């Protein structure tokens, strides 16, 4: 991909491109960023994403393909819904926006939709979006809709390109519009889905704050609750557009994303800088699949798995639903007998006992020796092991009683 606008490729960018090999760069999208922010401790994912490695292809080659996919029905319905929104001239957006921004109803609003060069490269589109945003923000009376604009956000030292569904500019300020396919039923929507949409929208707001700061020639304020007063700055409330009830009719609701914004900002700042990740990497490691002319990967699987394992992962069962490498990391966690395979909370419960084997050994000591709790403490077992031994004793006793009732059958 063309990165010339960043000037001379830095050593770390060169190293990242080596990691990727000959494959084209995958740019981070908001969904991936939100997933990354949910697990900021995972160096494996951070590095692979920064290098733009195609994780789906990588997971395929490692023998544990990602289970993700979208049904053609869902895609078709999503497109239908978006086209319906456009057909009505975005009327459904204007009304709630007007109310949110406090614009009187009699004010005539004709929506300008500038061309954002959708077929160009991300870098060109980003510049074009910036120009359109500046232009729209300059005239406070106009209404402008930026359809699928392109924004850039620096994440752990590497650029991510983001494409919100739409951004509406009016009165010198802009509002992120997020179009989703889950319904608003009797005035309320699934809170988990609204939360995910808000986290995603927060990433866009963050990128727009950076864009506005770039337009004004400064850096964005670090205070998450500070409202930017710059022209073109984003509102901290976004518009979520969903189908109403069981119909195809769109309905828009304002969602305050200040909390998600501060969370995302903090999580992203906590992410280990890409330089640091690269520094910890052994010489010569690459995730290149070495595809042959027909596009089939030729890199030996063991070698590739070896390369992946040089970067530590922070696996938790949630990864399976958000990360392409989830199944791969799970099998590694299982091989190592890590207690995280049972859930992140389990690790806190078991304290310093990090493997299934160690935990079971601690539990067995309590059962076999029939030790009194006070004695266990004297043996120097820590609190977690002591409690586990106590639990094991109770469990064995209860199963013996229950087993007797079951007639010896367990």
């Amino acid at each position, binding site marked *: 991909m063309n990165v010339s606008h960043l000037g001379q490729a830095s050593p770390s960018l060169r190293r990242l491109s080596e990691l990727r090999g000959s494959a084209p760069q995958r740019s981070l999208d908001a969904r991936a960023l939100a997933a990354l922010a949910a697990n900021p401790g995972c160096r494996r994912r951070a590095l692979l994403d920064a290098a733009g490695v195609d994780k789906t292809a990588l997971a395929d080659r490692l023998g544990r393909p990602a289970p993700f996919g979208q049904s*053609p029905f*869902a895609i078709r*319905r999503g497109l239908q819904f978006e086209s319906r929104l456009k057909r009505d001239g975005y009327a459904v957006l204007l009304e709630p926006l007007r109310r949110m921004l406090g614009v009187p109803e009699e004010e005539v609003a004709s929506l300008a939709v500038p061309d954002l060069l959708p077929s160009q490269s991300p870098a060109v589109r980003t510049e074009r979006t910036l120009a359109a945003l500046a232009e729209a923000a300059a005239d406070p009376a106009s209404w402008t809709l930026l359809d699928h604009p392109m924004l850039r956000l620096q994440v752990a030292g590497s650029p991510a390109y983001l494409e919100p569904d739409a951004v509406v500019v009016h009165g010198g300020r802009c509002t992120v519009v997020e179009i989703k396919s889950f319904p608003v*039923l*009797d005035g309320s929507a699934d809170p988990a889905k609204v939360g995910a949409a808000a986290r995603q929208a927060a990433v866009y707001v963050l990128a727009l704050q950076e864009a506005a700061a770039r337009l004004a020639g400064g850096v964005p304020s670090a205070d998450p609750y500070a409202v930017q007063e710059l022209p073109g700055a984003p509102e901290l409330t976004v518009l979520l557009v969903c*189908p109403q009830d069981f119909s195809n009719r769109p309905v828009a609701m304002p969602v305050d994303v200040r909390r998600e914004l501060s969370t995302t900002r903090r999580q992203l700042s906590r992410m280990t800088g890409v330089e640091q990740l690269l520094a910890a990497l052994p010489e010569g490691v690459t995730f290149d699949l070495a595809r042959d002319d027909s596009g089939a990967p030729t890199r030996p699987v063991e070698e590739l798995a070896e390369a992946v394992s040089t970067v530590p992962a922070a696996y938790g*069962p949630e990864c399976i*639903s958000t990360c392409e490498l989830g199944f791969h990391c799970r099998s590694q966690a299982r091989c190592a007998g890590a207690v995280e395979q049972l859930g992140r909370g389990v690790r806190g419960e078991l304290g310093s006992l990090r493997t299934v084997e160690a935990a079971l050994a601690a539990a067995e000591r309590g059962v076999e020796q029939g030790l009194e709790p006070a004695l266990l403490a004297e043996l120097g077992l820590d609190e977690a092991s002591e409690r586990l031994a106590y639990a094991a004793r109770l*469990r064995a006793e209860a199963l013996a009683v229950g087993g007797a009732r079951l007639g010896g059958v367990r």
Partner: protein
Amino acid sequence: MSLLSTLARLEAVRGQRAEPLATVRHRHLSERPMVLVPLAAAGEAGAPLAVLLGTDRDAPRLHLVPQPLNRTQRSEFLAAMAADVVPYLESFNEQVELLEGSEKDPVSGEKLPVVRELCADAPQLIVPNAAGVAHLALLGRSTRFRRTAEDPDPGEYPAPTRVPLLGRWLTHLTDRAQVPGSSMLLAMTGLLSRHWATGQSNLEDQHLAARLAWHLPPEGMEPAVTGAVAAEWVESARDADGLLRCPPAGPATDPKFDERVLAPAILRHDAAVAVWEQADASRDAVQERRAAGLVERARAELARVLLAATLPTWHDVWRGVDLLRGLPPAGHLPDRWEGDRWSFTMHRDRVAAGEPPQPRRDDAVTAARKLAQREREQAKLEIQEALDDPLAMAERRLAGEAFAGEVVDVVPEWTQGKSPKPRPLLVVRTGDRPHADPGREVYRAHAEPAQRAEIVSAEPGEVVVRLLSGMGRRKDPEPGSVPAVGDQVVFTLFELSPRQSAPLPEPADTPWTHGGPPVVGEDSPAGADEWE
């Protein structure tokens, strides 16, 4: 997750098979449950695609929507499903018990004897997972306001009478499923999770077939093993066409299945219908017959692929039922099932009385009542499970809310005064560490009648309690009411009968802080309009 269930999971990892979390079955299982495996069309909320249902494991019936976007076909599907499910639900209407009670006359305040009906049994629906329950709730919401031909204003597309009835029942059942310990609508994954631990996380346990792979080797897997390897095979093994060997338990289908199997089959059906419509318009009898045959074949093909997508889950649900039937029923099951029977009877009466469907949103009093009921039932469930199951009691002992042990000494003592009452001291040897200070009231489990005691001293290894009640009225305790030396006893720090919550006002007396009395007629039922 408690430490005890974490321990069970660790053991399951070691043994690569499910480990018990209960020694008895804590949910009622009907003699004649109806199993439903619903599928939803992707991309649209609650759009039904198919359902496989029935009460006989060897004879499931499939209903399907050939073109999920077609609202007429969707209505036909719902009518067919209603014609199948509603008679099952109503088959429990007739057999009743007559209970004599009394009711206060609102005018005179006198107590009048009344005879109330209670249905002798109630229906039970079992779906594969929690998402299945949510899907039934959506179906209920989308059908209970449908207008029928009997309505004064039937609208453009009147539905058969049973369709809104199905919606009301589904709404009632999914609502009832929120009540802790209820068994009228159950999700199989939840049932299995309550009784067994697997060596994987809660998240992965939501996949019914993967969860079952910790109990039984999955069908078609070589070599036949249980555990993580089997679960992963179930989650991800695909055949030569790229389709999952074990289709997901729904309601969402595998996107690959949608793309490679379902979409082409729907397309062929659409094409056949188009040909048939053309022939129908040209009034060519021969062509029409041929086209009708085409439509029939296309529909049969759709039925075949949808049956293949639901049948494995159907069998999985029944396998789960078998596993659960292997456990002896808990002692308090009839008590909780009676609550379900009351719930069923009352809804039956509301339907018979011609009351309107449940509103879109509950008014303040109804919502508060439901919450209070769920809290009460939760407390009751926790107590009953602890009494029924030593493993559940172990959870409470680990939390310091109960202690069990052997009586090593009994010291008879009496109250001072004119008529002395027995107040014996029990010395209990226990390894448990109850969070108990002297003076704290405790309750003896499994005592008949109920027995209270107070902590006199609690040292590690030994707790001394003084019995306060349940020993009769005389100077000497009733025989058998005081444990003897060598007896095993269990005392709990929590009360063994849940407290009644304060009564709530009638809806008409809703205070203004909660929106005031509900306005009648505000919630006009919508008919066909929201389907377009």
